[in-house]
């Protein structure tokens, strides 16, 4: 399978923090609109695209939102104070560049602190190079959200960049939409919003769609770096089939089905037992009367940093596994 990693590079570069996903939504909509039968946007901003089929109603969810920093105050000298939108670490943020929706670039730094281990976001600020409050206010308003600004890097093995979480899931969903031509199942691809702040978009989308089966596509952690916490998922060991995380214990039949499909098609895979975190399936599986759900995870190093890293083979294998899963009749 030829996978176009150029599209992934585009996707990680587009603005779309939680609650303000419009730019990425419009980009994805444009990318998929010729390949789907119906497309709509709901009140939380989820992009819901349907590829009609006669089989089971399947909701495939990849979240398009990113973690970011919301401006809550602009001081007299033009420095911006912020709060986190999703899981922002103060240590990772030190000296990182950020960019706003309008292109304004700034850098995050901190007040002098005696003990750096006590650093909190409230002691940090964003410097956009403005020399006064008035000048800053021309570029940024309270309530604006900025995102990390780093470059996309790749070699023959891996990509590393900001925001693989979860643009790599969006990438896999888009490629699946393009590669599935006559769906057996009734496919609802959801590019969900506000996952990073508590699976909020997936909750309302699942209610609306009322699916028979839910599948989320998202990054997971890694256990294969020096002295990493024990975790049986590593890069380049295949698509990760989730057993559990903090939001869900995946439906055993969905899990088995994914494993069987991987075996039959010789797609490398690994099982994922995650002791923290959660993703859209956590909201989907308890929607309405309950929805048997699973997750295909992309093993990723350094999640929620500015340099998340994943293996190209793993990404390709996740895509293959998803397509094979969706292409066949699903009996559970």
């Amino acid at each position: 399978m030829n996978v176009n990693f150029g599209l992934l590079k585009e996707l990680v570069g587009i603005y779309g923090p939680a609650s303000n996903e419009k730019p990425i939504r419009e980009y994805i909509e444009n990318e998929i609109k010729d390949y789907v039968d119906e497309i709509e946007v709901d009140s939380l901003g989820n992009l819901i695209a349907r590829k009609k089929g006669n089989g089971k109603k399947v909701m495939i969810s990849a979240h398009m939102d990113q973690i970011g920093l919301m401006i809550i105050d602009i001081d007299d000298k033009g420095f911006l104070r912020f709060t986190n939108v999703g899981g922002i670490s103060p240590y990772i943020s030190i000296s990182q560049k950020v960019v706003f929706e309008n292109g304004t670039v700034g850098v995050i730094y901190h007040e002098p602190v005696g003990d750096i281990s006590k650093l909190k976001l409230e002691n940090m600020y964003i410097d956009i190079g403005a020399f006064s409050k008035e000048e800053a206010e021309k570029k940024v308003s309270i309530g604006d959200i900025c995102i990390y600004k780093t470059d996309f890097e790749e070699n023959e093995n891996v990509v590393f960049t900001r925001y693989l979480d979860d643009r790599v899931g969006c990438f896999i969903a888009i490629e699946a939409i393009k590669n599935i031509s006559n769906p057996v199942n009734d496919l609802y691809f959801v590019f969900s919003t506000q996952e990073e702040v508590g699976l909020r978009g997936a909750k309302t989308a699942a209610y609306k769609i009322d699916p028979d089966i839910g599948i989320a596509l998202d990054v997971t952690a890694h256990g294969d770096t020096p002295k990493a916490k024990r975790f049986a998922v590593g890069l380049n060991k295949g698509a990760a089939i989730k057993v559990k995380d903090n939001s869900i214990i995946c439906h055993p039949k969905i899990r088995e089905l994914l494993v069987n499909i991987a075996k039959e098609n010789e797609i490398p895979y690994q099982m994922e037992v995650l002791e923290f975190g959660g993703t859209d399936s956590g909201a989907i599986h308890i929607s309405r009367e309950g929805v048997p759900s699973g997750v295909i995870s992309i093993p990723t190093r350094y999640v929620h940093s500015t340099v998340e890293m994943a293996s190209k083979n793993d990404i390709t294998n996740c895509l293959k596994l998803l397509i094979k899963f969706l292409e066949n009749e699903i009996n559970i």
Partner: protein
Amino acid sequence: MLLKELTEASGVSGNEKEVRDLIISEIKDYVDSYKIDRIGNIIAYKKGKDIGKKLMVTAHMDEVGLMIKDIDNDGFLKFMTVGGIDKRILVSKPVLVGKDKLPGVIGAKPIHLQKPDERTKALNIEELYIDIGARSKEEAEKYVSVGDYAIFDSEYIEFGEELIKAKALDNRVGCSLLIKLIREVTDISFYAVFTVMEEVGLVGAGPAAFEVNPDYAIILEGTLCYDMPKLDTHLIPTYLNKGPAISLIDRTTIYNKDLRNKIVEIAEKNNIPYQFRKTSMGGNDSGKIHTTREGSITATISVPCRYIHSPASVMSKKDYDNTYALLKEVLSQFKKEEL
């Protein structure tokens, strides 16, 4: 004075009846229909111009308080907190216990008897008790049962140029604004919802939103205010007397940017002072409302309250009036279908 009656009424989470009855008596002649739903929310409907979208305005009725969990052999009441209360504020506060509002005092070991290290630490809730003047367990049990609620005994007073001190301003101030809105705004259809058990996890709001299924919801709140002069401005969540606080983000909602911007525009156009709520701490009914069913668009507008969740919270009448003015303008923009 309605706010006085509302704040002096008893309505700890799960026990909102007294407040609910008071609210119903205030609104029943001004709404087209109302009901108490199965969890205890008031869901009222006012018919006016149909804007083609369902609009819901909400305020929670409940307040933080105490619940009696045990009565000891000497007739002292052991209690737990219901909702977020700073345990350090409890010592020596007068309270009213149970339906009959039996007076009591939260007691503790006097300072004279405390060891030096005890004086530097807040007393654990296990070391506190409510003294209702009973001389034995048997005597106490004549008046109080395990499971009874207690509220702070705190009178509504006005002081300074424009300030009000009362208990339960969070969120009787929201209830009061919503009652006023029901009475005065007659030209647009909307649902007015008074919810239960917000303080223990936004419990009532979910079922109410499920039933009403709104397109838009405005949540009215009393919110935290800590405007001490030596603080950096970004650490001040809201100021007293700087107008209604418009929420940006909290633990349960990132507020819809377009609706928020329109509310700001309305305030500016009408010269109504406003401020942003500059903290992401806390949460409110919006969290449940905007994620119920297929989702809705929400905004929270709050009156800043100093010393919130205590027997003596403080707000400004000026902020109250400006919050009402903004709210009324927002509804009139909905009517013009500008929102």
